């Protein structure tokens, strides 16, 4: 790749070509996002009282609700993206390479959505940003959410995406297009010489080595946000951190599979490259979902067998009471997902359809599991004999949540039209120069 002349052929992987289905996708995502923005405007002007959130105790509500569930879910999802990308790079797993960029994109997107949910949940979002910079205290588990996740992990993921994409950007810059300036900016002088490649490999290797412990530490602290609370039955315990990580891995890989399948469909022939990753992702999802199910079963057995008095209320609510439909839905979906994955693994045939179905089921199960972590311990977890509380998100919270989801989808949808979603192969590069 030494030529600097520009080409007039179409950009690869549908970049720059705005198709009808793509416009439809963008229109729907934008509409959902706009409605979410409207709902948030209502919340920002009226206060969090516009939501179904309420104080615990005498008010009998949940002070953390859907937004915190979304924080936990999406920060969890971010885990798998960059972890898979790091895995592929450090161990040179060629089959996973085609999904590395989608994985990095998923991490960036889910982190942005998760962090936006943090701000949306604050009573004073602007003051939050400012005061965290001035006064944040490491004694609070939130310190890591703000510094390690919000800055470290997000920046590292962006750097990962940026550096990993320079070579492709340089190839794209050889095409004549309206995006040429952007691709040249991204390539930032990359010419794919031997020393450059070597330097790139070294930088990415060390970044991968650094990012994995950063992921584990920062995401463990997300579990500890709950696990360190001795005064809240159902939360306190050392298992919260590993539980969080396992569910993060399962939900993250599941989302990655769904996203990769969508990219494959959207890109047609060019998208077939991601298929080599499905057996790997399927097996990783199977392992993570099995571990997730293991944690669920252990938790249920503990609840059923020897429950301290204060935990019993939560146990009953989860297993037979008001939260039972969500508990059993979560459990059932995880089981069905696992059954599908096991069948695919036994047949050694990772068909996209069933794999995506299993991934969607695992994703929904993980979301429900996050909900069950956050909410019941507030409504049913008061140590003093307050009357049992209740919480279910109202339309405004659901609209804001859907808006956040649409924001992530929109970011990814826009990205794949300005940059190749799948790292370009040497053959593609050759054809670009043909």
């Amino acid at each position: 790749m030494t030529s600097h002349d520009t080409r007039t052929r179409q950009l690869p992987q549908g970049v720059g070509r705005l198709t009808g289905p793509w416009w439809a996708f963008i229109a729907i995502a934008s509409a959902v996002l706009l409605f979410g923005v409207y709902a948030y405007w209502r919340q920002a002007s009226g206060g969090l009282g516009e939501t179904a959130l309420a104080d615990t105790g005498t008010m009998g509500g949940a002070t953390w609700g859907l937004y915190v569930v979304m924080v936990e879910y999406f920060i969890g999802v971010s885990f798998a993206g960059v972890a898979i990308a790091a895995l592929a790079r450090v161990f040179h797993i060629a089959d996973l390479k085609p999904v590395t960029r989608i994985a990095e994109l998923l991490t960036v997107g889910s982190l942005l959505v998760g962090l936006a949910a943090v701000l949306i949940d604050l009573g004073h979002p602007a003051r939050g940003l400012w005061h965290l910079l001035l006064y944040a205290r490491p004694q609070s588990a939130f310190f890591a959410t703000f510094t390690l996740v919000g800055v470290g992990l997000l920046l590292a993921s962006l750097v990962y995406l940026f550096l990993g994409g320079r070579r492709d950007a340089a190839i794209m810059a050889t095409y004549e297009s309206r995006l040429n300036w952007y691709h040249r900016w991204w390539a930032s002088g990359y010419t794919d010489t031997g020393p450059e490649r070597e330097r790139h490999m070294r930088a990415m290797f060390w970044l991968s080595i650094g990012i994995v412990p950063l992921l584990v530490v920062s995401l463990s602290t997300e579990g500890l946000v709950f696990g360190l609370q001795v005064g809240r039955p159902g939360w306190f315990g050392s298992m919260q951190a590993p539980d969080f990580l396992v569910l993060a891995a399962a939900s993250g890989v599941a989302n990655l599979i769904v996203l990769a399948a969508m990219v494959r469909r959207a890109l047609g022939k060019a998208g077939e490259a991601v298929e080599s990753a499905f057996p790997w992702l399927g097996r990783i999802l199977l392992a993570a979902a099995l571990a997730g199910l293991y944690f669920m079963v252990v938790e249920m057995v503990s609840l059923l067998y020897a429950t301290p008095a204060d935990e019993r209320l939560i146990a009953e609510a989860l297993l037979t009471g008001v939260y039972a439909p969500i508990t059993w839905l979560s459990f059932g979906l995880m089981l069905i997902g696992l059954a599908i994955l096991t069948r695919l693994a036994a047949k050694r045939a990772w068909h996209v359809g069933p794999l995506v179905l299993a991934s969607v089921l695992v994703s929904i199960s993980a979301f429900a599991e996050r909900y069950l972590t956050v909410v019941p311990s507030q409504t049913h977890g008061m140590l003093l004999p307050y009357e049992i509380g209740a919480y279910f998100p109202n339309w405004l919270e659901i609209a804001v949540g859907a808006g956040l989801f649409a924001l992530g989808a929109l970011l990814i949808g826009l990205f794949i039209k300005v940059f190749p979603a799948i790292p370009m192969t040497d053959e593609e590069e050759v054809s670009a120069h043909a």
Partner: protein
Amino acid sequence: MRRTLTLAMVVVGIALAAVGYVSSAGWSAQTLADADPAFVAAPLLFVVGVVLMVGAAVVYELLPDRE
């Protein structure tokens, strides 16, 4: 030059993050009433440290070769 600058960024980043972290914690405070960071914006120092560490990778790759 490239290695030196990258290494310097990582080392300074770690140092700033460490100082920022310890200062943010206010562990030297005698009571919780003055458990604020040892100096205003100590957490910002931690964040700058993290940014420098991650940014070192960009500098390592992007710094042009000496002709």
